[in-house]
Structures are given as structure tokens and as C-alpha cells.
């Protein structure tokens, strides 16, 4: 086969172009193999909270697939560009387009075979590593089957073949559209200097500022989630436009200033940057966006993972929590009896009675009663939970000695940072806040609210006040359930051994079921911790996988940039020397240019992350992560590690560059 042979020869001859291409395809194949193997492990379904985690991993594999298509297109296009001249030569030498298609087909076929073999192999090997990570992060593993399922490998093969077909289509179109002369000169043709496009630059600035503004001004966690993607989209668009148009506009302004521009220190850098930006704007913007994605995903998921203890502790002030709408007398008796029988001591007992968390909205003059029927998502930023409690119940639960003089006086505890003043207006009923309680004063009250909106705990003098307020607020039949009281019975128990704890919880749960009381909710901290760990660990795992994928993509883009610039700069280097710039100076200028080009996307990415921080902070509240200092620490550590990795990638690829320049 003539073409098969020629194709083989071509790949060997064009190592510099083919090696990074095939490597990236292998990387994509491995990534998909790994992700699909993990996501479809039969053991996954056996885990507690399997549904969420399966969904999560399913989502992860879809993201990886989309990423694969984009990235394959990118490297494929670069390969095509690098090989245009060669195709032109073949064309001139007498290979028609039809033959070129054939040649290209065989080249793709060989690359495909290499990609599949190497990709599946590395994918399987790395999935072992991934399982180890999962074992560590999720604290599970025995459930996982670690099996290599042939159906999964088959779907990877289908994905990769699909990618190659797509790439083949692209190069066929590119060959089809070209004429031989153009092919021959494809690389020589000096690119036109880009127009300074003010409009695009301004649109870019607007998009970026808008995105930042959303991130900074977001009020509630729920609207953070709703606006997250809008903000991301705006920032991505803004980044691309700023890199493509904004940089050129600024550089050209600098060039217009003759006093500045015609100065040894600025002349070469500014002109060089104009040239570089026009060639690399898209690549640099992609590096910036990818870096931001790495940082955000890893920092968020790591924050979630490392914050999961807080999450557990916050939701579970006690190890066992039982709640109901009716008094928990039978349950209480059954629990103490069972504990006595098992010879386990119950400690830190809490008995709390209050109203249900009641949905209110903040208005100009105070809080206004609302309900889930009338409520629309538009009001989400105004929503708060109000819980009422009588002074007697409060004193009983906490042992507090605080008193209230009149029926107009209340004690108030609130997590609403916007609340100020001495007055609380609840749908027209005004109260005097005689004392605002701190967190310690309510720590004995268990879990007062399970929603992420701000909480108002209002302690009034008499239970009768509560009853009349509830009757006033919820007069219709549909809303009768709002009037139900909320009882909590929470305690810790003194068992250390994990197996014994598990057995005790199981036994307790059974004993309570047999107590005769119904309609209560039984929750154990241990079980919650387990499912949270699974969920957060799963997220973190996805974060690491995506982070690695984006990081490697970044590295590859950087590599391509170094190679293409090395070729161009060599010429510049020699000419500048001949015109009278000394060796050292030329090296310094080129080095500083490269540094700038590389530092720029990283710095932009770090700025993006800084602006994203408040937004993500709010979103994490939904997952119960309120310790934002911890999240800040995690983010800083992740940013630091990423910057170091980025620098290493830069150094490694810079070597390729200097080899080209100093040849």
C-alpha cells in the first residue's frame, strides 16, 4: 500500500508536529477511560447516597467528553496548520486532493491505532491510581469492584473513533478549501496586523465588569447558584475579547505615544507584544480561562471536602437528633430505656420546643410573613426564617436566667448581618429587642433551621402570644401546618468503638420505632458524616480529575506556543544582533517578553478567582460550609500550588523554546 507507507513515513518525519498531537489524543483517551470506568463501577450503586454520587460522576464524564471534543479540535487544527506547506508540496509534486485525502486518512488511521492502544492502557493504569484516591477521599473502597468492564472500553473506543472522524473531516475540509500555491506559502505569508477593534475591546470590558459585578453583589446563596453560570459566561467572553481586542488597543495606544515607544526599553517589547498578541490572543485567553477553571474547581471541591467536618458539626450539634411536630415523650422514654439496657450513657440531653421555621421576607419596615405557596424565586434574596419560642421554653432548654418584662419585649438571635436596631417588626406587630443573643446563648437549641437563608430566633414572653400570632398569620386551611410546633430531642452517647456505635444507632432506631410514637425524624451524626464524606469526596475527586485535565491542556497549549514562537523569535534574535543589540540584551528582551506573555494569563486567572471568591463562598453556604476563612486558606493554597505547577510547565517548555532560538 503506497499511501499507508507514505503516511507512516510522514508521521515519523514530522515528529515535532505529530508527537504532541498523538500525546494529547492519548491523554484524552486515557482521561475518558478513567472517568468512565470510575463513573460506571458497579460498586458505586451500593454506596450510601449512591444516587447523588452516580449523578455527579455522570456529570463529570459528560464534562470530560465535551472537553475532549474541544481540545481535540484545537490540537487537530494546529496539526493541520503545521502541515499545510507539506501538503502544498505534495500537491505541486502531483498528488491530487483525492490522494491527499487518502494520505490523510492513513495518517489518521495510524494515529488512531496508537492512540487507542496507548490511551486505553494508560487509562486503565491510571484508573487504579484513581481508585486509590477514591478509597482515601471517600473512605470507601471495599464496595468498589475495580473491574475493567469491556463495555466501558468499547464506549471509549467509540468516543475516540468519533473524535478521529471529526478531525479527519476538519482536515479534509481544510484541504478541499485550499489551492496548492496557498498551501505552499501558508506559513510564510506575513499575517496582517490586527485592527485595533475598539468596539470589541469595550464589549470585553463591559462583559468582564458585569461578570465581576454579579460576583461581588450577589446576596443569597440561592441566587449565587442561579447567577453563577451567567457570571462565568460573561467573564469567559470578557476574557477572550480583552485578550484579542483589548490588548491590541492598549499596545497600539502605547505605540502612538512616540516619546514612550521610541525608547530602547519599550520599542522591542511593545512591538513584539503586538505581534505576539495577534498570533496568540486566543491561545492565551484559553490558558487564562482553563487556569481559572482549574483553580475554581479544585478550590471549591477542596473547600467542600476540607469543610465537611464543619458541615457535619453545624448540622449536628448532637450525635443523635430526633425531631417531630408533636411532643416526644414516648421516644424519649424508649431512648433512655434502650440506652440503660445497652449500658450506654446518654449525655448533653437537649429538649427544645419552638415553632416551625417560618418563611418571612424582608421589607423596608421589617419582616413580612410569607409562605411557600405565594413565594417566587424572585424574592429569594429577601427570604428569612423566623422561629418563635416562649421564654419558658428557652429557659428550660438553655438554663438561661434572662427575663422579659413586658409582652412587647423580646430576646433576639439572628444570623442576618443586615439586621440592625432595637425594633423588630413582624408583619405589623412591633417588638422591643431588649437583648440580642450571641451564638453561645443559642448553642443548646439544636438545629433551628435547615435552610441557607438568614435565621431570626425570636423569644417572646408567653406561649399564648405565639399562638395568637400564628393564628393571625396563617388563617387559611392550607397553611395550618405552619402552626405546628417543633419538638427536638437531641443527645450524645458515650461509645468510642465504631462498630459498637453503628450497632447502637441501629438498635436505637429500632427501639424508637417500637415505642408507639409516629411522625418523628431520627437522624444520626455518624450516618450523616458518612454520606457527606462520600458526597464531598466525590466532588473533590471530580475536581482533581478535571483540574488535572485542564492543567494538562494548559501545559499543551503553552508547549505549542513555545514552539511556534521559538521559530519566529530565532529570526528576530539574529536580526537584532546584527543591527547592534548585544547578545545579553537580546536574550533579556526576549526572555522578558515570554515571561510577560506567560505571567499575563496566570495573573488574569488569579484576579478572576479573587472576584469569584465571594460568589463561591455564598454557594458553599448551601452545602453548609460557613467557615469562609478555611475556604480562603484552601483557595490560597490551591492557587499557590497551581502557580508553582504553571511555572514548572513554563520552565520545561521554555527549554524547547531556547533550543529553537539558540540553535
Amino acid at each position: 500500500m503506497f499511501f499507508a507507507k507514505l503516511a507512516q513515513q510522514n508521521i515519523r518525519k514530522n515528529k515535532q508536529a505529530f508527537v504532541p498531537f498523538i500525546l494529547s489524543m492519548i491523554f484524552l483517551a486515557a482521561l475518558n477511560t478513567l472517568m468512565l470506568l470510575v463513573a460506571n463501577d458497579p460498586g458505586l450503586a451500593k454506596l450510601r447516597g449512591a444516587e447523588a454520587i452516580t449523578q455527579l460522576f455522570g456529570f463529570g464524564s459528560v464534562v470530560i467528553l465535551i472537553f475532549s471534543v474541544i481540545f481535540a479540535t484545537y490540537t487537530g487544527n494546529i496539526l493541520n496548520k503545521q502541515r499545510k506547506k507539506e501538503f502544498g508540496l505534495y500537491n505541486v509534486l502531483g498528488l491530487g486532493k483525492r490522494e491527499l485525502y487518502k494520505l490523510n486518512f492513513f495518517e489518521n488511521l495510524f494515529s488512531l491505532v496508537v492512540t487507542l492502544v496507548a490511551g486505553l492502557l494508560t487509562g486503565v493504569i491510571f484508573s487504579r491510581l484513581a481508585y486509590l484516591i477514591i478509597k482515601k477521599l471517600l473512605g470507601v473502597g471495599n464496595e468498589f469492584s475495580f473491574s475493567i468492564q469491556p463495555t466501558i472500553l468499547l464506549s471509549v473506543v467509540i468516543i475516540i473513533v468519533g473524535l478521529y472522524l471529526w478531525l479527519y473531516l476538519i482536515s479534509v475540509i481544510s484541504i478541499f478549501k485550499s489551492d496548492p500555491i496557498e498551501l505552499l506559502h501558508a506559513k510564510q505569508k506575513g499575517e496582517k496586523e490586527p485592527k485595533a477593534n475598539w468596539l470589541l475591546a469595550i464589549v470585553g470590558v463591559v462583559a468582564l465588569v458585569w461578570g465581576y459585578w454579579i460576583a461581588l453583589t450577589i446576596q443569597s446563596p440561592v441566587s449565587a447558584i442561579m447567577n453563577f453560570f451567567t457570571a462565568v459566561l460573561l467573564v469567559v467572553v470578557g476574557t477572550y475579547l480583552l485578550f484579542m481586542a483589548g490588548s491590541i488597543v492598549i499596545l497600539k495606544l502605547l505605540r502612538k505615544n512616540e516619546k514612550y515607544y521610541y525608547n530602547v526599553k519599550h520599542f522591542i517589547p511593545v512591538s513584539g507584544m503586538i505581534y505576539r498578541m495577534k498570533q496568540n490572543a486566543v491561545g492565551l485567553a484559553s490558558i487564562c480561562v482553563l487556569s481559572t477553571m482549574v483553580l475554581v474547581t479544585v478550590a471549591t471541591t477542596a473547600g467542600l471536602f476540607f469543610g465537611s467536618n464543619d458541615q457535619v458539626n453545624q448540622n449536628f450539634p448532637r450525635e443523635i437528633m430526633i425531631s417531630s411536630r408533636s411532643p416526644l415523650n414516648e421516644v424519649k422514654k424508649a431512648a433512655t430505656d434502650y440506652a440503660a439496657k445497652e449500658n450506654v450513657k446518654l449525655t448533653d440531653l437537649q429538649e427544645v420546643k419552638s415553632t416551625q421555621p417560618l418563611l418571612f421576607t424582608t421589607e423596608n419596615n421589617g419582616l413580612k410573613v410569607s409562605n411557600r405557596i405565594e413565594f417566587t424565586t424572585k424574592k429569594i434574596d429577601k427570604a428569612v426564617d423566623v422561629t418563635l419560642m416562649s421564654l419558658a421554653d428557652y429557659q428550660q432548654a438553655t438554663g438561661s436566667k434572662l427575663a422579659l418584662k413586658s409582652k412587647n419585649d423580646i430576646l433576639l438571635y439572628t444570623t442576618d448581618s443586615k439586621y440592625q436596631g432595637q425594633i423588630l417588626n413582624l408583619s405589623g406587630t412591633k417588638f422591643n429587642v431588649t437583648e440580642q443573643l450571641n451564638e453561645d446563648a443559642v448553642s443548646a437549641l439544636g438545629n433551628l433551621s435547615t435552610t441557607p437563608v438568614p435565621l431570626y430566633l425570636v423569644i417572646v414572653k408567653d406561649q399564648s402570644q405565639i399562638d395568637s400570632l400564628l393564628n393571625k398569620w396563617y388563617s387559611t386551611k392550607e397553611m395550618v401546618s405552619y402552626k405546628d410546633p417543633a419538638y427536638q430531642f437531641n443527645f450524645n452517647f458515650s461509645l468510642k468503638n465504631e462498630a459498637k456505635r453503628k450497632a447502637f444507632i441501629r438498635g436505637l432506631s429500632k427501639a424508637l420505632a417500637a415505642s408507639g410514637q409516629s411522625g418523628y425524624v431520627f437522624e444520626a451524626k455518624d450516618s450523616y458524616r458518612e454520606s457527606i464524606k462520600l458526597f464531598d469526596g466525590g466532588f473533590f475527586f471530580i475536581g482533581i480529575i478535571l483540574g488535572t485535565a485542564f492543567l494538562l491542556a494548559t501545559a499543551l497549549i503553552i508547549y505549542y506556543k513555545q514552539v511556534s514562537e521559538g521559530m519566529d523569535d530565532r529570526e528576530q534574535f539574529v536580526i537584532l544582533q546584527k543591527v547592534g543589540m548585544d547578545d545579553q540584551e537580546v536574550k533579556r528582551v526576549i526572555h522578558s517578553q515570554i515571561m510577560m506573555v506567560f505571567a499575563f494569563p496566570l495573573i488574569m486567572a488569579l484576579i478572576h478567582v479573587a472576584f469569584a471568591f465571594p460568589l463561591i463562598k455564598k454557594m458553599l453556604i448551601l452545602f453548609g460550609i460557613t467557615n469562609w476563612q478555611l475556604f480562603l486558606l484552601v483557595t490560597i493554597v490551591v492557587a499557590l500550588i497551581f502557580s508553582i505547577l504553571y511555572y514548572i510547565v513554563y520552565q520545561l517548555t521554555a527549554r524547547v523554546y531556547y533550543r529553537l532560538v539558540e540553535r
Partner: protein
Amino acid sequence: MKDLLKIEHARKVYQSRFKGVQVEALKDIQLEVKEGEYTAIMGESGSGKSTLLNMIATLDKPTSGKIQLAGNDLTSIKEREAAAFRREHLGFVFQDFNLLDTISVKDNILLPLVLSKKNINEAKQKLGELAEKLEITVLLEKYPYELSGGQKQRVAVARAIITEPELLLADEPTGALDSKTSEQLLDIFEKINENGQTILMVTHSSLAASRAKRVLFIKDGIVYHQLYRGEMDDKTFLEKINLTMTSLLPR
């Protein structure tokens, strides 16, 4: 007239990449160039012309021997000083133009002045006059890749002489040009020489050499003959050069 350039016993040996194999590009070069002269150095491809020119240009150093330019000893000059020396004393025109594609024609010409930290307003005035003289005023805002070969070479000449160098060095300046644009370039060389510019041109084309005032012949690493134009016209001088060349051919 004073000697601007004086080369004594210059020898250049290249160490080949394969150990032990040495190439003696220049053996024993002896030559002087006086101020205001227009000299051509002729020789076949591979005879060491570019090597010689690169040494004069401080881009390379002789293995032994002495090169003096404008009172400076080039054999003992340091890399860093060499760059400054090139900037202040020399102008270059190359066969392949060596213009920076990344900057406009105007900026290419201004480049040496910017590197020498000259005042920009004076520099622009000089540029204006020079562009007028070389008929490239309309090209100033374009980019090198938009120009034809002849236009590029005129820009390169402008860049070379804008610093008013003591010596203009040209390595095969017509090598990439067709006969008509070659002619135009040589007209320019003649004109600037008449204005007092010293020129040293290296070429293997006798047609190009015939436009100079003096021609040196280089072969087997030595300057073995020279011709002065004297009162000869271009055509007679050319015939004489060609005659000398044929006598050089190995018998």
C-alpha cells in the same frame, strides 16, 4: 586619505562539528580600505567572502591576525562592546534583507537610532530626508512582508545608513534581486558613495562588482589580485573583471 579598515594576516579556521575536521575558510587576508572608497570583494561561492565580512562586522573573530577599523582593534573587542561598535560605526545590507516582519518599515529604519538612544524628533527628520532620497516615502507605514524584494533592499539600505556609519557593509546585496532592481540598488550605492559614504560590498556577480571603484579577488583564502577602475566606464571595467575571473578558473 586615511586607512579606515586595515586587515593583516587574517586567518579563519572553522572547527567542524565532526571532531578533527577543520575548514580553513580564510588563510592569510591582507587588505586596506580608505575613507570614501567603494570596494567590491569578488569570489566564488564558498570562497570565504561572508566569513571575511562577518569578521569586519564583529559578528565573528579571526583565528589569528589583526583587524583594525577606525582606530579600533576588532580582535580584542568584547561581545558587549562589539554590539555598541556595530551600532556606531557600521551599517549592514544583507542578501536576505533581514528586516523585522513584526514592525513597520518606518520602525525598521528607525531601529538602529532607537537602539543608540537618539532623540526621536531628530531621528524622524533624518528618516524623512533619507526616505525621500531612496524613494521609499510611500512605503513607510507598510510592513516588510508587503514589499517586493527591491523595495525591501532599499529599506535595508535606509536602515544601514541612517546612523551615518563610517563603513557600509553589503553581503551579496543583489543576490535576491532581479536584474532591474539590482541595477536600481547599485545606482543608490553609487549615489551615496558620491556623497562620501565608504562602501565594502561582497558579491559573486561581476556585474555588481563592476559598479565599484575597486575590486578585490579572493580565492583559496587569500586576496590574490585587485583591479582599480580608474577612468574605465562600467562596461570596460566589467570586461576586465570577467577576464580576471576566467584566468582564475582552475586550468
